[in-house]
């Protein structure tokens, strides 16, 4: 309570720190444009954004459970499950397929939520387990092969260009993202999820139906992952039981680098976009820069740890301990 004196200093740091992800992004862009002139080409920037748009939706989805202090490790499972199940039922690629992918994503997320909220199991293990289950279902349906969806309509969802030069997925994903940013910040649902992440017992006592909003958070996660799957499948023109590998860690890291704490209650869907951009720019730039993949891994580790360190500076005091 005697912190009042230091507060003025703190605010300044906080302002700078809020800019850390942006500074990292700009720094990366400058470095990469020197490393490879092609990096800064318009078409490559579009490529980065197109890749980001898929990551963005998935990461935005996962942000909801994380804000609540839970975690969703079933990203891969939901990507694979929603894509494959929908493509098995309706491989034609019409509006029905689109609807189906989203719906199945929602259902899979809902199932996670029910297990977490109703049987009261830790989300970490629930989603780890359902990840196995969803992947298993997908592999069983496809025997591991992929299902090509050869429909121009479907492909246009991602690859078409309503605005010349800019793929639809960027625009559509942007719209969906903004809607969900609004949902998380301006609506009751978003606020309750934050409250549960802050203090679950207080939230419950204040009359919030904690179980319901836990389920909603996981369902939203599922829905958004389903949405990401839609753009992913549309971009590749296929659904596959191997599609989602590698999304888990990248999205979790994007969420954290964006400034959402894994302990819940801090951060927001809005900030996730910065984390996503850092990750995609890093990957794209290093690939174009011709950096050995193996060294890429190491560079990525340093940059990620470094930026999380910088982001968390204002929220820590000397006596803080880390888990």
């Amino acid at each position, binding site marked *: *309570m*005697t912190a*009042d*004196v*230091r507060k003025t200093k703190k605010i300044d740091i906080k302002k700078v720190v809020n800019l850390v992800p942006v500074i990292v992004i700009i720094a990366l862009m400058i470095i990469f444009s020197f490393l490879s002139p092609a990096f800064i080409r318009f078409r490559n920037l579009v490529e980065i954004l197109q890749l980001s748009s898929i990551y963005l939706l998935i990461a935005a989805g996962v942000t909801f459970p994380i804000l609540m202090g839970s975690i969703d490790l079933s990203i891969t499972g939901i990507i694979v499950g929603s894509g494959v199940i929908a493509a098995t039922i309706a491989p034609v690629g019409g509006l029905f397929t689109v609807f189906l992918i989203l719906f199945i994503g929602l259902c899979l997320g809902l199932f996670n939520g029910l297990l977490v909220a109703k049987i009261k199991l830790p989300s970490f293990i629930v989603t780890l387990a359902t990840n196995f289950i969803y992947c298993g279902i997908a592999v069983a349906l496809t025997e591991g092969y992929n299902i090509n969806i050869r429909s121009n309509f479907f492909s246009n969802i991602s690859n078409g260009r309503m605005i010349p030069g800019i793929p639809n997925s960027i625009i559509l994903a942007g719209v969906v993202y903004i809607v969900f940013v*609004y949902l998380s910040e*301006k*609506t*009751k649902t978003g*606020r*309750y999820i*934050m*409250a549960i*992440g*802050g*203090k679950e017992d*207080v*939230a419950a*006592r*204040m*009359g*919030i139906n904690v179980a319901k909003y836990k389920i909603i958070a996981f369902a939203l996660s599922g829905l958004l992952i389903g949405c990401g799957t839609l753009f992913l499948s549309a971009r590749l023109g296929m659904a596959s039981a191997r599609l989602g590998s590698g999304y888990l860690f990248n999205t979790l890291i994007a969420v954290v680098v964006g400034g959402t704490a894994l302990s819940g*209650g*801090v951060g927001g869907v809005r900030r996730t976009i910065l984390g996503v951009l850092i990750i995609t720019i890093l990957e794209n730039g290093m690939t174009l820069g011709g950096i050995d993949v193996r060294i890429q891994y190491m560079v990525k580790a340093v940059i990620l740890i470094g930026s999380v360190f910088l982001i968390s500076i204002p929220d820590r005091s*000397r*006596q803080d301990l880390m888990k």
Partner: protein
Amino acid sequence: MNERELLFRAEGITKKFPGVRALNDVNIEIYTNEILGLSGENGAGKSTLMKVIAGVYSKDSGRMLLNDQEYRPENYREGTSKGISMVFQEQNLVPNLYGYENIFLSHEKFFIKKSGVLDTRTMIDKTKMYFEQFEIDADPAKRVSSYSFHQRQLVEIVRAFMISELYGINHPLILLDEPTAALAEKERELLFSQVTKFSKNATFCLISHRLSEMMTYCNRIMVLRDGELVGEVDPKTSEEHDLHTMMVGREVSRDIYGISKQDDDFQEEKVMEIKGLTEEGVYKDINIELNKGMILGLGGLVGCGKRDLGKAIYGITEYQSGSVLVNGSFVKKGKISAMVKQRVGYIPAERKGFGIIEYLPVSWNISLPSIFELANRFMLKVDRKREKTLIDKYIKRFRIKASPEDMCYSLSGGNQQKVVLAKWIAKNLDIVILDNPTRGVDVGAKEEIYSLLREIVKEGVSVLMITDDLLELIGLSNQIMIMKEGQVSEIRDAGKASKPTENELVRYMV
């Protein structure tokens, strides 16, 4: 209070918890505009009664009437919407949400625009208006974690008013469960002046372990013991000691601080010397000398830097300049482990956060600081036999009402505090730094803790006691230091015979 208009009535309330009957056939009446005090020892059922009224718990039997209408709240939310709100002992705010978000939490339905989006602006404006009205100097659009403790408590009271207004109730009943436990003198007064002011439009029901403030501010005090209502006290005609006796059910010593047992001939040997300790803007040039076997009381207003000083001495935080010597040797700053090695212990004010480990057994909590001493040097194997002897000894000595295997969270506040005390004393310390050792502890337990302190001092332990409670400060200390705005404003002896009065000390505080 002449008209005595009945606001709320409860008849034959009974509530059972597994193994205990928390409330047994309690009848209570609350009149408008009054401040009703509820008192009793920990476990007497005060909080339970409040929670039943607020709708947090459901009663097993009995009935409640609010404004002559049957009142049967399903949950706390329904209680609030009917005009009964509660300010909980463990604060009921979500720290990461903004002030206004907390105030309207779970009642947002009044602010949803057609688009489904919340009308943030109105919510903020409304909150701001109320904050001004209630003289809360806080920004509604900031996280409540940045509010001071006092502000947070007021926010909860404001919430009660605000929600009543939303539901069209112009006279809320606000239940305050130990609102002042963690507040300093000045803030306490501020709070009560506001409560008194608000009581024009509301009715309050108050629980406090500080009997003096109940005597000062309450219109009536009901006393509970073992879940039953044992009587009512009119503060105007009785004195604190009557209340004591009624609560405990036996005659309580008037000398709860054990002044008669105070030993002023403590040894000359200096166990701790603090020289010129300074942290810019927090405390400045502090010099303390602690003799063996003495209790040095450190008082001052909240924010005067006394608690920060305690933390810095113990090594939780660092200081800019100065030095701390324990038993004549210099101790590196910011090193708890070095302090503990010098056999210095620290009892924090926030018991739950820093004192006990809730989900570990009592036994493990007690042996934690000494665990490496109980282990052999090479393999670090804990000597179970020695550990058990130690634990049993201290559970017995400190009269902790729990078995060693009980999880700490299931203990009452007083017993938890005794565990914290026991874990340090079990380590066979030289010095112990206490930060508000009896915060949120009931009278009975307080008395026990004080007598334990007297005991250990007699054994040669030195105590540096930081406290917001003036009476405690005066009653226990051999010597008193008062801090004001980070500097020592007064040092004086408080020998058995020469205890200063409250007013004398307050002068140096402000």
